[in-house]
């Protein structure tokens, strides 16, 4: 059964109405306008201009209109149907927003500040929401803006979807592009060995030069990104390949960081172990703790395993934070003055130098992950992930394999933790909250679970982008939550899905007669 155009519009309208009101209530309308302003190169001013706010609302209205316009397009779908859907969607969402806007505008006019209960709704944001007009005029403007933009966008999207000319044209161009690449033999060039040498050479040069030129702020940002890449690659082993979700991954990060910190900081144990030794020990202790924690729990079913690891992580964090451990781990205050790297006795602690350390670590872990991925061990992990029972029946010691995967993951997390502590020259219990794990899980999933380039993409998108879009800082976790839900629904394999290697073809291409 097909829903009528009005129904369709009504449903979309209510959804978008709620979204707009929520955005207003959490102050995102102001942030959104600011983001649009930034897009157009406007300088960071405290109050975004009315123009950018209008543009922001128009974009939302157009989105509403586009999603309201009927899909899939059949013969019976007429232009009228699309227009009605869009119009209704705009009208309804606009009306919902207008009513709420009017209420708040009226309250504000009567000098009632809603910030006691809704701290994000400032008088400025109310004024902006109502286009700096009176409550009545403002809400009417809101209504009109939404209706018009939704209707226009519904009509436009009708044309885009129905217009065969456009569809064919774009198909042709992409074909043409592909043809060009093929005919020019670009593919072969790109795949040739020299190309990869050139690529690596350029990458190396860039990686050597960049930390020197872009200043300590970007070194800090990309240092964090690098540490999260390491964490992501580590989690990928146990979760992406072996298929065991570990929510409490941060526990191993904390173990690595604390091991390193306690060995190199003057307080509380007066140890000044060499950076490299402490780093190795941090990795080792984290790996062993992965082994020990894994022993009793790795036979648990997937979701139980996830929750148990969460329990472990919380226990470790609460213990670190408690007074009980103050003598051993410096308690809630954390550990200061953690040592930095030295090479041949020379300190190596400037932000540029440390960036190199992180780059080397990222490359090393990437290399290891790459080597493991399609090895015999890696295949065993993936087999366990897909069907543990059958994997066992083909001779794989599933428990042992999972234990190995968890230990390796934990060791990598230990490395990340040690680097993190060393770079910040500080570590405390709050560095190791559950949100670190959630961040890592998000970036692995968003990038493409089980895929190495996916981890890079995910880390840049989830740790790098928010640094650039500073306005969104407080909305970051909210967006993560939505992102997780949407990814699981639409694209659980992530933006860069993992690909299987082509072994048969590869073997066929190498002249097999020689070695026989």
């Amino acid at each position, binding site marked *: 059964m097909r829903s009528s155009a009005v129904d369709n519009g009504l449903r979309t309208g209510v959804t978008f109405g709620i979204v707009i009101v929520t955005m207003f209530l959490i102050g995102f309308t102001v942030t959104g306008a600011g983001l649009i302003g930034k897009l157009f190169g406007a300088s960071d001013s405290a109050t975004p201009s009315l123009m950018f706010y209008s543009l922001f609302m128009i974009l939302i209205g157009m989105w509403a209109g586009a999603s309201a316009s009927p899909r899939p397009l059949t013969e019976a779908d007429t232009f009228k149907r699309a227009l009605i859907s869009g119009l209704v969607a705009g009208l309804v969402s606009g009306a919902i927003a207008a009513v709420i806007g009017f209420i708040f505008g009226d309250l504000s006019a009567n000098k009632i500040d809603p910030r006691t209960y809704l701290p994000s709704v400032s008088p400025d944001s109310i004024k902006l929401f109502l286009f700096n007009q009176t409550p009545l005029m403002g809400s009417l403007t809101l209504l009109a803006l939404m209706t018009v933009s939704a209707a226009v966008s519904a009509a436009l999207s009708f044309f885009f979807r129905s217009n065969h000319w456009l569809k064919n044209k774009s198909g042709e161009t992409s074909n043409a592009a592909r043809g060009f690449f093929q005919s020019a033999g670009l593919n072969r060039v790109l795949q040739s060995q020299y190309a990869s040498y050139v690529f690596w050479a350029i990458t190396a040069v860039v990686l050597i030069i960049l930390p020197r030129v872009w200043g300590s702020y970007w070194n800090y940002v990309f240092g964090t990104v690098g540490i999260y890449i390491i964490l992501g690659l580590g989690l990928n082993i146990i979760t992406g390949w072996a298929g065991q979700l570990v929510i409490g991954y941060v526990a191993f990060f904390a173990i690595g960081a604390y091991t390193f910190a306690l060995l190199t900081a003057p307080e509380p144990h007066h140890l000044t172990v060499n950076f490299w030794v402490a780093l190795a020990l941090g990795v080792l202790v984290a790996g062993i703790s992965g082994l020990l924690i894994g022993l009793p729990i790795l036979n648990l079913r997937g979701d139980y395993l996830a929750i148990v690891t969460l329990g472990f992580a919380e226990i470790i964090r609460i213990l670190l934070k408690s007074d009980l451990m103050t003598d051993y781990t410096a308690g809630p205050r954390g550990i200061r003055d953690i040592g930095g790297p030295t090479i041949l006795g020379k300190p190596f602690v400037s932000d540029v130098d440390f960036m190199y350390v992180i780059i080397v670590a990222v490359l090393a872990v990437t290399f290891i992950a790459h080597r493991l991925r399609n090895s*015999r061990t890696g295949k065993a992990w*993936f087999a366990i992930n897909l069907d543990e029972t059958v994997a066992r029946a*083909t001779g794989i010691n599933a428990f042992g394999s999972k234990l190995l995967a968890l230990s390796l993951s934990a060791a990598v997390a230990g490395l990340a933790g040690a680097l993190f502590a060393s770079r910040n020259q500080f570590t405390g219990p709050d560095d190791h909250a559950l949100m670190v794990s959630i961040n890592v899980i998000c970036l692995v999933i968003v990038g493409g679970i089980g895929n190495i380039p996916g981890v890079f993409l995910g880390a840049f998108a989830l740790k790098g982008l928010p640094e650039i879009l500073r306005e969104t800082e407080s909305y970051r976790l909210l967006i993560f939550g939505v992102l997780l839900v949407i990814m699981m629904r639409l694209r659980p394999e992530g933006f860069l899905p993992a690909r299987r290697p082509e072994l048969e073809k590869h073997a066929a291409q190498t002249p097999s007669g020689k070695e026989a």
Partner: protein
Amino acid sequence: MPACIQTKKVSKIFGGLTAVNSVDVVVPENAIASIIGPNGAGKTTLFNCISGYYVPEHGEILFYDMPIQGQPTYEVATMGIARTYQNIRLFGEMTAIENIMVGQYPRFKAGWVDAILSTPRERSEEKQAVEEGRRLLKFVGLEGLGDSLARNLPYGAQRRLEIARALANKPRLLLLDEPTAGMNPQETEKMTHFIRSLRDELGITILLIEHDMRVVMGISDQITVLDYGTKIAEGKPKDIQSNQRVIEAYLGPDVTSLTQKYQLRKKQRYAKS
């Protein structure tokens, strides 16, 4: 000939229900043996006991005179017992050749350290694995399909790939759970030949569960009949075909008279209307 696999009074009980009841089966080396019986007779349960999924409550299972009951599944597999499943269970998200390479797992030694360092051992093993995988693909008639995902293969190809994966470990005993289920007569015919060639060319002992009597009677050296978890008959195909208890188990004691009774009742019904 030595016994390849032998069960001695094996019983498996599920919550009070005896699924397999004191069953003795002896399969000589290099034989093709079948287990038949009505649905729910305990055939697959017996398979699961042999391959190590279940630990039988009573009895012993001997593989070349070595007791294997209670051994973990992966060790049973490593010793040389491979199996297929009634409802094909491949690693769907892996390619065909990778499925076979997982099957080869116990035969190779390279560990994670080898993988990271890319030691000569790991490189030569990997090369050997791919080579043998391709040979196996060719053997089961899937040449050229090695790089397609297992779940995208057609039904018949999936069945053959599953057997190829089982063969990858060079097993001495192969357990086949309804290898011709869902096949048409021509495909069944081919599969029958294929199973025989496994024994003749590779020297593998085969124990299979099968419902298609043409297949069973055609290739079995020995047939064991289970009913309600109990062995009710054992012997050569000819003996089984004429065994009264087997006929009863499959068709009921006086199926002819029942058939006549029901046909009569049908006639009366037609007469009425």
